[in-house]
């Protein structure tokens, strides 16, 4: 990609008003290392192993009660759309866990 040098003088020249140069913001660093909660309880190994690389557990556990088919579709969407590297062999255990903790019985 061709990058052209771009001077401050040129910048100031093209505006109708050379606004007062605002003080440049300071660098910022925050701590984003908290992984957040994992899934707990019986059968949570598969979902923790496959899903928590991308997200913590809260939003999943805050879902309305969904059918087994809906949970299967959610897992499929994570894999197909968001390219989550889920071990195919673990899918039944993940769906089973979700249907147990946030299932609607259907």
């Amino acid at each position, binding site marked *: *990609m061709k990058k*052209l040098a771009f001077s401050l003088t040129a910048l100031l020249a093209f505006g109708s008003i050379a606004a007062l140069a*605002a003080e*440049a913001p300071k660098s910022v660093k*925050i701590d984003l290392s908290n992984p957040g909660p994992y899934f707990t309880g019986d059968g949570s190994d598969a979902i923790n192993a496959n899903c928590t690389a991308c997200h913590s557990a809260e939003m999943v556990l805050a879902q309305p009660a969904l059918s087994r088919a809906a949970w299967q579709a959610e897992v499929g969407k994570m894999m197909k759309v968001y*390219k*989550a590297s889920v071990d195919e062999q673990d899918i039944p255990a993940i769906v089973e866990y979700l249907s147990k903790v946030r299932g609607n019985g259907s």
Partner: protein
Amino acid sequence: MYSLNRRRFLLTASAAATLPKLARAQSSIDLGLPGGNGVHTLTKAGEFGQKSEGLILQRTRAPLLETPMSVFDEGVFTPNDKFYVRWHWADIPDSVDAEAFRLTVRGHTGKTLSLSLRELMALPRFEIAAVNQCSGNSRGFFAPRVPGGEWGNGAMGNARWTGVRLKDLLDHAGVKPGARQVRFNGLDQPTSPDGPDFMKSLTIDHARDGEVMVAYAMNGRPLPLLNGFPLRLVVPGWYATYWVKMLNDIEVLDKEDENFWMKTAYKIPDRPFATMRPDEKDVPVVPISRMLPRSFITNIPAQSRIAATAPVKARGIAFGGDSGVKEVDFSTDDGKSWQTAKLGKDEGTYGFRRWEADFTLPGPGAHTLKVRCTNTRGETQPDQPNWNPSGYMRSVIEATPVEAV
């Protein structure tokens, strides 16, 4: 609407003023979603960088933080440390070097720009008040419920944004004939190896409308990192999905953007209020775009106990969507009759507007309060809620059940 840990308040005009403090003292909140499961812990100070304590913790990683309704009662500008947070991917830089950062403008242009923050801030300054609202704000109230971020009504906020017009940047780069769209990308990255990088696009005409801007400050301060430091796109009147955070790349395209986040995601039924029946199939869809009018009562939570036959003041916020607020109406009888609310100062077409109404409930028992906004286009909030499988664009007249005692 919210019930604060099922605590009931006897509400008078003076008691209402103390609600925000009470809300902050709570450690969890129940969003009161249909079918339940709406209890969330509240954030602790320092837990999410510059964000305050008391935000509704929807997810730690990638962060989803909701602003409690009580915050909107404090004023029409949402404080930066209480402004909601929404990220798709968890790979968010935890630091940005303000000296090394560059914004690139490139693609179907005469030249490529690479701008430091100092250079950007030396450009003609543009400022606008505008509501930033998640496409899925209030998704948790959809009936039947739909999967997704189960937000209450607090995935929104209003700020005064300061920065430069996108038009100025594009003009300087020199948009070539045949430009169709402008695509925006930020520093966040997918957490899965082949996951789709989050990018959004606007048409070239929209990008050059003189209101779409690149903001380096909100409410007079640098953006909190989780709201997009150092730069974010501001698209007044449009849903927040377009307001790309940590914006570092602007690409002019000579064709339609086919990336996942434009072509597949964030689609709505191509109908008024983006609504359909849950059993409908093959409904034509279009990309989500402009916002619709909404309004909220901010000083009276659902299930409040209110003194009957005594004067009470209701107040709240309204916004017109992609136009200004023309009128706000208030009802104490579930929408059978309406009184015109008094509007507060107009801080700008796209921002929150304060409203107030005095009322007296006629006698003890259950009552339903409602508030309704009409925008300057003449669009009014609908009586019936919309529904779509993604939980987008809720804009129904909200009801607040209360008990007069």
